[in-house]
């Protein structure tokens, strides 16, 4: 039996409201399938499942708000038999036979998911009009909720993470020239942004300095082999999200550009996936877009580092690193920042 629990979709999430199930009992699901849409205070998120199985029972009802970790549904693992698991009370079985209902196909509400007499009778009643999908939170409430969520995550960060901050002016003559030449030969829809070079250079530097990439949990650092870069994306209505581009270290710049464009589009349309929200291993912020020279970001827990990029001016950028002193020191942080700077000098190798 597989229990599908409401995952944490970020350090600032304590609960979520189920908007919609994308599956019904009996559906086969594969690892990575979207099974539900859950409203967090930041966005409506497509929640994926991480095991194969067959949906047996949906426990949480659309419209319900439940804490992170709540068992929302039960599934049968591949090869697991529904019959052997299904418990139907004798009275329910008898009544089901009278009504011509197959009790094996009902969602049980009794102990251990047992089908009760009530479940059978409920099923036999003429089907009521399906409940409308509960509306997402109105925009004004959403903005207030998002501010609260950001405040909670950033307060936790500043309370728990002893930050240190470093910055360095990185020459971008070579990167700018390379990008210009590259974009001149690319059709408009395939052009690259400098931000993609920043993201890739940061990911490659993480491979050299693994203490910048991973999570700090339960009093210990857990490095991550993959580099999932959380990209800070400001939303037009206010607030921000920092969903992940996965496995950045292995992706070519063209693929990264596609991923970034898609991520920005979906973040602004409020259609992110749970894995993107929950698993960035480091964050990159490119606040220079707004014209600022330097940004010193606040680390998004449980991550342990954040790389910031200011505005590109006179073919240079001020790059910064915010590091977690529980995991690394300024010396290693400086080497990490130096690696980002070095990697940006060889854009053709990114």
């Amino acid at each position, binding site marked *: 039996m597989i229990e599908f629990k409401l995952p944490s979709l970020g350090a600032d999430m304590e609960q979520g409201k189920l908007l919609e199930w994308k599956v019904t009992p009996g559906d086969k699901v594969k690892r990575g399938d979207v099974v539900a849409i859950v409203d967090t205070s930041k966005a409506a998120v497509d929640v994926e499942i991480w095991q194969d199985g067959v949906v047996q029972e949906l426990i949480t009802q659309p419209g319900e708000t439940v804490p992170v970790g709540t068992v929302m549904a039960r599934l049968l693992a591949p090869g697991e038999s529904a019959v052997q698991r299904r418990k139907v009370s004798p009275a329910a079985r008898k009544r089901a036979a009278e009504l011509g209902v197959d009790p094996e196909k009902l969602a049980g509400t009794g102990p251990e998911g047992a089908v009760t007499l009530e479940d059978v009778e409920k099923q036999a009643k003429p089907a009521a009009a399906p409940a409308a999908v509960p509306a997402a939170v109105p925009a004004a409430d959403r903005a207030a909720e998002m501010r609260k969520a950001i405040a909670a995550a950033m307060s936790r960060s500043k309370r728990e993470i002893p930050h240190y901050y470093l910055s360095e002016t990185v020459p971008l003559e070579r990167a700018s020239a390379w990008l210009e030449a590259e974009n001149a030969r690319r059709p408009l829809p395939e052009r690259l*942004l400098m931000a993609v070079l920043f993201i890739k250079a940061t990911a490659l530097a993480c491979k050299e300095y693994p203490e910048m990439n991973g999570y700090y949990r339960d009093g210990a650092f857990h490095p991550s082999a993959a580099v999932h870069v959380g990209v800070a994306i400001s939303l037009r209505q206010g607030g921000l999200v920092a969903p992940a581009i996965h496995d950045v270290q292995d992706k070519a710049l063209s693929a990264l550009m596609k991923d970034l464009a898609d991520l920005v589009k979906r973040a602004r349309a409020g259609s992110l996936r749970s894995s993107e929200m929950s698993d960035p291993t480091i964050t990159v912020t490119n606040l220079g877009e707004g014209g600022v020279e330097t940004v010193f970001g606040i680390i998004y827990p449980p991550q342990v580092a954040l790389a910031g990029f200011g505005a590109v001016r006179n073919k240079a950028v001020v790059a910064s690193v915010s590091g977690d002193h529980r995991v690394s020191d300024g010396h290693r942080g400086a080497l990490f920042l130096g690696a980002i700077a070095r990697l940006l000098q060889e854009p053709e190798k990114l």
Partner: protein
Amino acid sequence: MNKPEIRATVIAELKRIAPELEESELAPAKPLRDQVDLDSMDWLNFLVALHERLKVDIPESDYARLVTLDQTVDYLAAKLRL
């Protein structure tokens, strides 16, 4: 397509990216990206949309000629040989 039509197309595409945009508040001779708060991804998406709708190519080296709304309309009109 005449200039007013080009302008309408430009505004329509801007609004797709920035739905909150009020055309009446847009100063046509002031920098567009600042007024509409377009980051480089928005800007690229805006140009891709114009490229697809008007079938014009806009090399990166021409971005400096597209600073204001008026300049953008003039540039596109020239490209379309109006």
